[in-house]
């Protein structure tokens, strides 16, 4: 009998464990391979297939995709109406992101600093539920609210504010026949749907600001406004940037919201959807998807430099 070592029945599990113990990298490799193959082959592979398509072009007469390398599709991307689509979408994404940040901040700040116990749980659930609940149902709800004969119109009438509503709808660009057929409507729905994505990371960042920082700032003579500008906001910024990754990216790629609530002028997502579907112009559709990819790559790179990933 040995003193130092245990005489255990090794069994098959024990034997395999010994192999993995001697070569821990082998276990990591075996664990990682199946999911990596899935994401690497199915997902990344598909992305490359898509990228490849963007270097093909569509024969205008026959409507057949020519499988030859060309940059002409990208050239099309920068033609008048297509550039309009891109600018329109990016502007919308930026406005939605800023608005979400403004609405999200008080909620996140209250939840992080003042809510305790059951209140905190309630706040958290109140943000999580709309985040995870059905996307289509949420969009549909806004269709009901924004429709011409719908909730907003009724409230405007009841409050004798019809003149205001009509005034807003009469505005160029953002107005339209009713809120559910206007940019303003699209913008409302985007803000509503993506708002939880902004609240959670902002709250996570604020949770990490120790309360005594704020007391220290006040102690050093800063008024609440100065404390906010010089202490709270800079520390919350990585969280806001992390949230903006979602609000920006999701707005850039969405094609359902502007289709249900919006007017006939297209956003990137709709353009992609129509091009690959009815128009059958897969190369141009692929080139269009490269736009959000490049924008998001730049955005992620910037966010990483600001430390936003630590908050995710």
């Amino acid at each position, binding site marked *: 009998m040995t003193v130092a070592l*245990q005489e255990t029945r090794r069994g098959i*599990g024990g034997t395999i464990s010994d192999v*993995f*113990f001697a070569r821990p990298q082998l*276990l*990591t490799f075996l664990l*990682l391979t*199946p*999911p*990596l193959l*899935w*994401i690497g082959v*199915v*997902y990344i592979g*598909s992305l490359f*297939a*898509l990228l490849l398509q963007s270097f093909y072009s569509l024969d205008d007469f026959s409507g057949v995709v020519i499988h030859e390398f060309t940059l002409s599709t990208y050239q099309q991307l920068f033609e008048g109406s297509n550039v309009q689509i891109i600018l329109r979408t990016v502007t919308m994404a930026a406005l939605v992101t800023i608005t979400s940040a403004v609405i999200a901040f*008080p909620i996140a700040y209250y939840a992080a*600093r003042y809510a305790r116990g059951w209140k905190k749980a309630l*706040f*958290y659930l*109140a943000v*999580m*539920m*709309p*985040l*995870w*609940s*059905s996307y*289509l*149902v949420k969009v*549909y*709800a*806004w269709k*009901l609210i924004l*429709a011409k*004969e*719908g909730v907003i119109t*009724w409230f405007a009438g009841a409050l004798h504010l019809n003149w205001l509503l009509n005034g807003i709808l009469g505005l160029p660009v953002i107005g339209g026949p009713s809120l559910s057929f206007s940019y303003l409507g699209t913008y409302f729905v985007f803000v509503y749907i993506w708002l939880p994505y902004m609240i959670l990371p902002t709250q*996570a960042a604020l949770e990490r600001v120790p309360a005594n920082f704020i*007391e220290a700032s*006040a102690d050093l003579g800063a008024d609440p406004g100065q404390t906010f500008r010089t202490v709270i906001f800079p520390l919350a910024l990585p969280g806001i940037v992390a949230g903006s*990754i*979602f609000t920006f*990216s999701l707005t850039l*790629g*969405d*094609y*359902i919201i502007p289709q*249900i609530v919006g007017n006939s002028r297209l956003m990137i997502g709709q353009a*992609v959807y129509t091009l*690959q579907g009815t128009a059958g112009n*897969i190369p141009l*559709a*692929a080139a269009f*998807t490269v736009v*959000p*990819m490049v924008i*998001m790559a730049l955005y992620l790179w910037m966010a990483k430099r600001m430390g936003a990933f630590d908050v*995710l």
Partner: protein
Amino acid sequence: MSSNGKSTSPLGLRISATAGLLFLHLPLFFIFLYAFTTEEKSFEFPPPGLTTKWFGVAWNSRPDIWPPLYLSLEVAAIATALALVFGTLAAAALSRAKFFGRETISLLFVLPIALPGIITGIALRSAFDIMNIPFSVWTIMLGHATFCIVVVYNNAVARFRRLSGNLVEASMDLGADGFQTFRHVILPQIGTALLAGGMLAFALSFDEVIVTTFTAGQQTTLPIWMLSELIRPRQRPVTNVVAVFVFIVTLLPILAAYYLTREGEHTGGTSK
């Protein structure tokens, strides 16, 4: 502000926080309300009358609802099962050790949700085109599993990180080999996180429409059915009845997932 100023918040802050939360929740109320309206052609507000007949209509006279419902349940179940296996493996591997390229691989595993869904959708579609794979339940499921893996991975990796390495070492120190340690220590620790991840993945898959549109071909899932009803409505209140149903079906797993992970930090759901 005094040191016990923690418990009292400025009025302005309380008002804007409450208003923000109301903004998040009020719209859903109208979904419920319109499921009971007597007006089926328009979204007239307030509803001219209230009725429960649409629940009966949806149940009895709209056979077009059922096949999409079954398909959605089937896809969600399979995608969730696959995601549980692959997501857990990935989380286990990436939380195990530092190795070359780990950061890059971690980034890979969040890419399917960091990039807009439309990119995932059209990318998968063009890959299916190139490889001549016909659209079927399996192509839908393939797309869903891809983002469901990410959801399970996110939940599991957060728990794996919190699972103190000491517990695993303590178990091995007390004579348990790798498999015994997994069974008696690791699995009980990550079990609830996996369950929660699985539930969120199910809810997400059941509700998914953006990727599905591209990978479904002629197949109709419940969200696709709803989308077509939104664009070309037949009986609007019936759509509301289904919306109420979908809302509840996705809400229950979300609440369950919250219940399962509430003891820890709320890391799981930060990103969808």
